[in-house]
């Protein structure tokens, strides 16, 4: 049934069903924080497994252990490899953290929609707000925007975590992002800590202190409680729901809107999401 099978663009001749993954090799593992590692994945013959857009996800599978959806944290502008930042919190992630460079995993994707970097976001000032591991999905957008700097206005990044040790991609933030003209990085941690002379406090309150004007589009990602209060803060600053984007996360098995578990209202988060504008989120039943 040829039309049902897709030929993989990057492994010519490799015919696959959407549910059949490709083998990917872990070529590098970076320990970001005590419970987050970033895995660099390449195709067996080098290069990327597939092309993606910022915000899209992929199913990462360890045979016999499990399979789950992870956002691709590397930017599409990176032509050599893809990266996943993964926090240890369940059976599969525990196993992935035990792997070492050179090990093989299975990957299929990319799935879902993406941040509208080529449409709505183009030409805008951007405000990125992230907490903890939620920097992972935003990192691909940020790097995409930085690599196409001329297309976007001023970029502000507000990023917080429990402690300085829990900041993901700290090296890149400090050595690359903060040095680019027109990019302001605002870091914060929940509690004071030795050797930390930056801001201390929760992301929502820091956001209010920074008091941004509404001439920008916000992209908000983090734990539900942080989203709730940040959104409230943005509303008070005068942001409209149509100006704020976020990502949703639900249990997924197929990634193509058929297995049914990420269905909420008329949407399938794996196919119609994970990126939603807040006015779209508000229209969904309260089951996320």
């Amino acid at each position: 049934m040829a039309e049902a099978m897709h030929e993989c663009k990057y492994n010519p001749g490799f015919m696959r069903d959407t549910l059949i993954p490709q083998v990917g090799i872990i070529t590098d593992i970076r320990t970001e924080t005590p419970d987050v590692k970033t895995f660099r994945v390449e195709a067996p013959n080098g290069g990327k497994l597939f092309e993606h857009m910022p915000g899209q996800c992929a199913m990462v599978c360890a045979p016999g252990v499990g399979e789950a959806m992870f956002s691709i944290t590397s930017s599409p502008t990176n032509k050599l490899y893809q990266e996943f930042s993964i926090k240890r919190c369940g059976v599969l992630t525990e196993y992935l953290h035990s792997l070492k460079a050179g090990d093989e995993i299975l990957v299929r994707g990319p799935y879902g929609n993406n941040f509208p970097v080529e449409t709505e976001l183009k030409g805008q000032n951007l405000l990125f707000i992230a907490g903890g591991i939620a920097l992972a999905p935003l990192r691909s957008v940020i790097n995409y925007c930085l690599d196409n700097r001329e297309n976007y206005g001023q970029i502000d990044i507000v990023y917080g975590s429990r402690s300085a040790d829990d900041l993901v991609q700290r090296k890149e933030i400090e050595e690359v992002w903060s040095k680019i003209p027109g990019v302001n990085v605002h870091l914060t941690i929940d509690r004071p800590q030795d050797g930390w002379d930056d801001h201390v406090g929760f992301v929502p309150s820091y956001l209010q202190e920074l008091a941004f004007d509404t001439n920008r589009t916000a992209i908000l990602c983090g734990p539900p409680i942080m989203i709730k209060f940040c959104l409230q803060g943005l509303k008070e600053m005068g942001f409209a729901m149509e100006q704020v984007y976020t990502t949703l996360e639900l249990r997924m098995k197929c990634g193509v809107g058929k297995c049914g578990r990420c269905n909420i209202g008329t949407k399938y988060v794996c196919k119609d999401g994970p990126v939603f504008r807040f006015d779209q989120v508000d229209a969904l039943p309260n089951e996320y």
Partner: protein
Amino acid sequence: MYKISKENLNALYAAIAGGNDLFLPVKNAGQTNFGLWTESADVDIDTLKTVKSAKDIFFPQSESLYQVRRQDGKLEIQGEALREKPFVVFGIRGCDVKGMEVLDKVFLSDPVDGYYAARRQMGTIVSLACGRPETSCFCKVFGVDCAEPAGDVVTWLVGDTLYWEAKTKKGEALTEKLGNLLEKADTADVEKEKEKIHAIVERLPYSNLSLEKWGAAAADQNFDSPLWEQLYSPCLACGTCTFVCPTCQCYDIKDYTTSSGVQRYRCWDSCMYSDFTMMAHGNNRTSQMQRFRQRFMHKLAYFPANNNGMFSCVGCGRCVDKCPSHLNIVKVIKAFEKEGQ
């Protein structure tokens, strides 16, 4: 139109099965389900409803997707072969044929599910009109005419004669293959049978359910109704309704470790189960009420919203017959119908 007498049906089955797999209702240990025809199979086309619907043949309860073998630390993927051999399904009722249409919307929409598509392409559907509709049937509500089901070939069992009419190219090809077994017939008996069936359908207790409260608009309107809290309470959280349903298509993908590697298979899952939406960080549907509501909202509101008003229920009435607590979609529809009055 052609006909064949009932006593020659075994010869018909044998002729269809020659070169093809033939699936038809077979009785095993007192229950009738679709199964592969063999000479010794206890074929039962008189039972109106098989326990499981015919969806099993196109979307099996469990099927292997691929094998992963590990050699010297390298992974090797071997995809399961897609169905390449033609097969025939005989005796599938109008509601189940409609159920296939619903499944097509899911599995044949982009990206196409290769496993399902291959079976759809290879399968020829021979449907059978319902001579004796049951109390629990309400297919009329969803636009199914059980006197004239869809399918590649439509058949009617009138007395001791089976009438046969090909409707598509696939059906014509199958008819041709059967040659002399079928003899030409006129349509008078079948027309009379259809009238008889229509008269019974009018008398069915659920034939006139109103779907006014449902459809795309219901996605917003019915979600917060207090009725759900009352309706769900006897639900046992088993998966009977979803497993006997011809349109429920949620599935799980799981691994099975064998001595030679890992077999990745998919199997039916049920939105009624608490672990259906369970993630490492929690569950977004924590109560049985939410899970119960999800099933009916999906069938009667979300699905129509995404598919031009087509409902994801075909009125086969299996859940009406099989729910251990006697909950079912009819009670849900009626409760909402009464609410507005």
